[in-house]
């Protein structure tokens, strides 16, 4: 079986402008959502309490909300989690001393809901200080990944490749965040982990194309301009790109389908990241390399000319 066997190089670079226009529009939309709606940060970042309960029978979140509100927990958010019997209750940080007891308070109040018994399945409490640290550490991790990748690529290739790769992949990250903002999906620590994993993973894609670019530059002394080389590199790696991503995507989608509610957003972030990762590696990073004006000489060091002494 062989699905991709283009006879000629596909002229991706000729349409680079169009592809990038699509990219820019998506990117802007993502930024817009991020600015207008903001991320729905989980309590891990904001501090607060989360209680997951399973009811003995179907219970409307509204009933639970009113029960909690009547007892003074007006800011409690209650929503279904996976099934009609599973509920997720979120409380913002209540001030020192009170917060650590919040989950006990919720449990006591739930016991008052008539005719329904609740089994507590999960409690998470994060103090505001810890939340701030987790947020800072998350940003530090992001910075570390960006710098690390840029440094590595600059060393292995050239700085223009490094910059192109990171710009293309950060654009994926912004798009993932944009989707989370647009649909107000919860952005938790594990989603952050997924985002960083995707960043490392889609840089692969770029690296593989760049590897090929360098190889072609080295091998073919014939006149082949940069866009042609890029087209050739992308076409040659096309099959691998599709097969690999199809495999990874298959894995991620099974996590999305079978991994349960806890892993849902994590798998979703990976799915979006992988899909956009292909797009941005092929169209965005390669086009950037072209526009940065990379030439053969930048990658292939000219052999040192031997200076022969004249006797």
């Amino acid at each position, binding site marked *: *079986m062989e*699905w991709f066997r283009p006879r000629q190089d596909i002229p991706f670079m000729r349409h680079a402008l169009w592809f990038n226009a699509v990219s820019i529009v998506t990117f802007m939309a993502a930024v817009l959502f991020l600015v207008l709606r903001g991320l729905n940060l989980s309590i891990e970042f904001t501090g607060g309490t989360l209680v*997951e309960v*399973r009811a003995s029978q179907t219970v409307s979140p509204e009933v639970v909300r009113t029960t909690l509100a009547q007892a003074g927990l007006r800011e409690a958010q209650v929503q279904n989690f996976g099934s009609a019997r599973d509920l997720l209750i979120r409380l913002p940080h209540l001030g020192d*001393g009170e917060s*650590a007891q919040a*989950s*006990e308070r919720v449990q006591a109040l739930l016991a008052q809901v008539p005719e329904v018994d609740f*089994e*507590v*399945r*999960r*409690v*998470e*409490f*994060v*103090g505001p200080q*810890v939340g701030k640290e*987790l947020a800072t550490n*998350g940003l*530090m*991790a992001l910075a*570390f*990944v960006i710098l*690390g990748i840029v440094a*590595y690529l600059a060393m*292995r290739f050239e700085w223009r490749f490094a910059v192109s790769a990171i710009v293309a992949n950060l654009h994926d990250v912004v798009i993932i965040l944009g989707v989370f903002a647009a649909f107000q999906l919860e952005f938790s*620590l*594990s989603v*952050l*982990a997924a985002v*960083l*994993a995707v960043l*490392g*993973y889609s*840089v*692969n894609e770029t*690296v*593989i194309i760049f*590897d090929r670019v360098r190889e072609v530059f080295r091998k073919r002394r014939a006149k082949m301009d940069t866009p042609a080389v890029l087209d050739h590199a992308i076409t*040659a*790696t096309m*099959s*691998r790109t599709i*097969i*690999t991503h*199809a*495999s*990874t*995507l*298959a*894995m*991620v989608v*099974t*996590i999305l389908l*079978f*991994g*349960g509610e*806890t*892993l849902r957003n994590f798998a979703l972030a990976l799915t979006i990241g992988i899909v956009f990762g292909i797009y941005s590696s092929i169209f965005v990073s390669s086009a950037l390399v072209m526009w940065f004006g990379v030439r053969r000489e930048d990658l292939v060091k000219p052999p040192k000319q031997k200076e022969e002494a004249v006797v």
Partner: protein
Amino acid sequence: MNRYPLWKNLLIAFVLLLGAIYAAPNLFGEIPAVQITPARAGAPFDPYALAARLEPKLSEAGLAHQGFLYDPGALRIRFADTETQIQAKDLIESELNPDPAKPEVIVALNLLPGTPEWLARLGAKPMYLGLDLRGGVHFLLEVDMEGAVTKRLDAIAADLRSLMRSERVRHQGISRSGKLIEARFADEPSAEAARRIITRNMPDLVVDILPQGEAVRLVARLTPAAEQTIREYALKQNITTLHNRINELGVAEPVIQQQGAERIVVQLPGVQDVAKAKDILGRTATLEVRLVDDTPGALEEALAGRIPPGTELLYERNGRPILVKKDVVLTGERLTDAQPGFDGQTGEPAVHLTLDSAGSRIFRDVTRENVGKRMAILLIERGQAEVVTAPVIRTEISGGRVQISGAMTVEEARDIALLLRAGSLAAPMRIVEERTVGPSLGKENIERGVTATLWGFVVIAVFIISYYQLIGFYSVVALAANLMLLVALLSLLQATLTLPGIAAMALTLGMAIDANVLINERIREELRAGVSPQMAIATGYERAFATILDSNVTTLIAGLALLVFGSGPVRGFAVVHCLGILSSMFSAILVSRMLVNFTYGGKKRIAHLSIG
């Protein structure tokens, strides 16, 4: 061409064999067990004697067990099913702890790995599951370091007052304000005298004298080193205290660890009653020193139910009754340190106590008046008093250094010192993070994670085999080897496996196939260019290697960042992710190549390379 030397094949086979051995324990599941540990650190505990005592009781009740496991500090009994386990626990509990208010041992339900003996002897253990997979409570506690420092400064201020009194230096008041101790004096000479006394007696303080109108103000603060010591000591003591308290909860494998400079992580697998756990963690215990009533006949009277007025009937740790006076000589607040050591003259194991100066004075007076009598040191928790030790006072003890010795082993001395230190928390703590996962959710999480991974694997396998045929099959075998090696590594390192960790395992498998896809595509490309099959295999692997390396390095950078900056669930993800990348380098390149070599290597001509 395309043949590995024998040593390389053997090496790969050896690594795979090791992987299989260390991954194997994960297949055997867990066996329900009852775990018995001493209620107090240092109490006499003989697992063999205990087993001999329990054996007939269990068989009498018709509860068949599957063997005893002996540890110096624990006895574990395995059972066939959870029902027998629970019945046995109740039986053992009533047998060993006749008085529930005064437990002698902690009896806890536990799950032991069902690893066969020969595997266990090789050090093979199943993966260590995180709390989100097995259920339990995780607390992050923050020690109030400012509290610890000010508490110490208050004690120092009190010491200063009594020091000034005994040295006859007149002052106009000594008090603590913030992190400073201020003393006011009427004139310069007395302030200077005070400074000399402080420098001589309290090396932890830095003293400044500031003239203030008529009067003179003396300001003392802690040296940075001293403050650091107080912080470290506070953290260490709080951890010790937590150890002792958690011991009581009967948790099978508690984790109590320092995290950073002022935080403590407490993980209690299997604990459901969070409220009780919080109560026990936050409780305070106190230490008291009282005199023993050794009036002849008084103890017998008390045992007969007629307790003499002003006394209390208590028990020593070995169960011996003792009659103690109700008047408290000293409380634990006067104790600044307790360390195990040896008696300077006899060389016997001993515990050295250090009292603050007010405590020292009281102690000197009391010991002078009671030479030849016994003095009891009590630990009071939840209103329950227990006599830790009751030594005879031999001479007057001054200077605040007290030694408890006589009839104790080195280990007992260490435990008593620990108990005395751990009696109360050095500084208040508060919970800054809590995660509780119910056992049903934990089980569901495992099932879901495993289902997702297996289905994902099947989908990839079917796809890759149908696309690349025989070579594709080898790629899938390499992927399976990768999964096995990853599980083996995680089991060997005993890294905590969390739900995000399982997700990382699935994701890593999805990414690891990339290496084989790269290789296979490269081989096809070479074939298309008209290269002979043998040559195509060789160059395919060779050329793909640089690319695989590059792409794995970038993924590894992201993984490392998560490992360094991540916490909790994210770290679980990162560990698996990083290890998975490393193991995939081995399996994707070497294992698949070995298989391809076995099939095609050495043949003169290959009519058809089965690569789709």
